[in-house]
């Protein structure tokens, strides 16, 4: 048992982080919020880097890596708040022409929602009757499905969980950074236990979710994947809220990055399986263990 990232995995994670810092920095994030629309150039750059073809076999033009590596990739995407139907396109690689290369944007219904429906080239699944809604997340246009949501492959839930994990890690980092710098009453607010304890709990939630997400990626177990999403949903949403709290008044402004994390975390929580559904699935697994 060597349940730690190996050198290749560390390098992959660092490489993606570096690519995203270059191609989707704070300015690009701001521009995406203000301008909307999917950046096709960025999509192709992701395709070229192997983001979508990561798990395709090498003989099919892919990178030939597995679910653990995909989870590291999507963790970084979540950390950077990268917009677009990333998971649907990743899962379509090798099945939909151009998806692996980043030439085709693929979306799919997930839960009761479809994201990026108007901008996508291909829809996998039934989006009949989908109605446009004003999305709470300024970086994700949404349609609502009349019939509610369905399941989908467990790896979809796991990759969503990985994005949530990345977001939780990022908001923890932001809160800690702010708590070290922001001074009140003549000292950094991070010296106050009330703030310190918020930050400590953020790390605890993130690290517990990390263990669950990484383990599910290694085992590929569907029940474990669903459990990982439950923990990662909680981590992403609660960490974003606590980060907002640590930021104080600044956290309530449009300028701070925090609200974007919170809104996206809420959106991902609505993807399959929602926390209520995930708890039911865990209860069913418990029944099996009886």
């Amino acid at each position, binding site marked *: 048992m060597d349940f730690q990232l190996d050198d290749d995995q560390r390098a992959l994670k660092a490489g993606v982080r570096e690519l995203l810092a270059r191609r989707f920095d704070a300015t690009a994030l701001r521009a995406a919020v203000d301008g909307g629309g999917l950046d096709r150039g960025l999509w192709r750059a992701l395709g070229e880097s192997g983001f979508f073809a990561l798990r395709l076999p090498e003989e099919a033009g892919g990178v030939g890596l597995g679910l653990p590596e995909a989870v590291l990739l999507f963790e970084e995407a979540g950390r950077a708040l990268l917009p677009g139907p990333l998971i649907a396109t990743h899962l379509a690689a090798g099945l939909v022409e151009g998806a692996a290369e980043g030439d085709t944007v693929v979306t799919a219904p997930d839960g009761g929602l479809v994201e990026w429906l108007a901008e996508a080239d291909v829809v996998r699944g039934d989006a009949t009757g989908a109605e446009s809604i004003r999305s709470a997340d300024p970086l994700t246009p949404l349609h609502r499905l009349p019939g509610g949501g369905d399941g989908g492959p467990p790896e979809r839930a796991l990759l969503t969980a990985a994005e949530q994990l990345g977001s939780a890690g990022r908001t923890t980092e932001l809160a800690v950074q702010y708590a070290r710098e922001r001074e009140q009453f003549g000292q950094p607010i991070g010296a106050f*236990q009330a703030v310190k304890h918020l930050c400590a709990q953020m*790390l*605890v939630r993130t690290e517990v979710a990390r263990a669950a997400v990484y383990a599910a990626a290694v085992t590929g177990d569907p029940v*474990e994947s669903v459990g990982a999403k439950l923990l990662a949903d909680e981590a992403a949403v609660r960490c974003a809220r606590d980060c907002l709290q640590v930021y104080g008044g600044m956290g309530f402004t449009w300028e701070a990055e925090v609200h974007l994390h919170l809104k996206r975390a809420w959106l991902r929580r609505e993807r399959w399986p929602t926390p209520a559904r995930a708890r039911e699935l865990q209860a069913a697994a418990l029944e099996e263990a009886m």
Partner: protein
Amino acid sequence: MDLTYTDEEEDFRARLREWLAAVLPTLPPKPDPLDWPGRRAYDTGWQRRLYDAGYARVHWGASATLRLIFLEETERAGAPYVGANFVGLLHAGPTIAAEGTEEQRAQWLEPVLRGDEVWCQGFSEPDAGSDLAALRTRAVRDGDAYVVSGAKIWTSHAEVADWCELLVRTDPDAPKHRGITWLAMPMDAPGITVRPLRTLAGSDEFAQLFLDEVRIPVGNRVGAENDGWRVTMVTLSYERGTAFVGEVVACRRVLVELARAAHKNGTWDDPVIRRQLGALHAEFGALWRLIQWNVSESEHTGGVPGVGGSVFKLRYSHARQELYDAAAAVLGPDALDLGREWTRDRLSSLSYTIAAGTSQIQQNIVAERILGLPKGR
């Protein structure tokens, strides 16, 4: 990332499992929780069996992974836990193994492993709980002995212990972390009074110790004089590290039993209760993975568990309380029946967010040592 075990590790697991299946049915019945001599005999008897079978050394010296497998398998099989041997095996033993002299290791380790001697812990004091470095029990050098006076509290198994790992203040003028010394105190020395303390769970789980000019040979000092704080930190990192492995396995077993009970009495049909149990299933699954992560990391960093133990303890202690709250939801009015094991366990679980460093102290540790937030109020 790899969650599989090596062939040797799987072989260890298989042999252990086979041995447990053979030996567990031959164990004597469990003693009454209030029968201290009975508990000592039961726990040390189990330790002796482990010793004879070659498993006694697993708590220190073995790889962290073997220890993980050992704790997982013994708990899964329903074998006795360390019990009265807790301090000897998980605290004093590893500390003496790491910091003691050759002579001290020869004197104290073997009897702990054989189950011949039981240790207790004299760290906390009435005015030094989570702020352990505030301890005041005084030790004054007199020839070849330290003369110790003061009071200790929360001392589990004090009534049946042979030795006490004792923290004393040897330099009252030094900064509070620097004037502390680690001593092994024989419990039959004159001047020691043991007074049991009754817990809210109704048991006399631990005791107060009153020390009145107890003479302890200088040769019983582990580590240098006034270096006891550093020695203690070695011990505590073990306590917060993998000491909870068996208990997480036990919690997962309790959860399955709870589901069974909920089916039986119909509470499973209540979606609030059912989902509560489902959430705990995910929770303890994740905690088990976190243990594997920490164990794996400690093997990378040389064996001593790091501050990751604080992250684990913070979450686990609350999860365990939630588990027994869920048990109460399943039991309904029976949750008020002290004849029910889960009711007693629910009461006991209240100590988890306090013992071995309160949750608030653990949060300070995580914030300051991992996140690098400034020290302050």
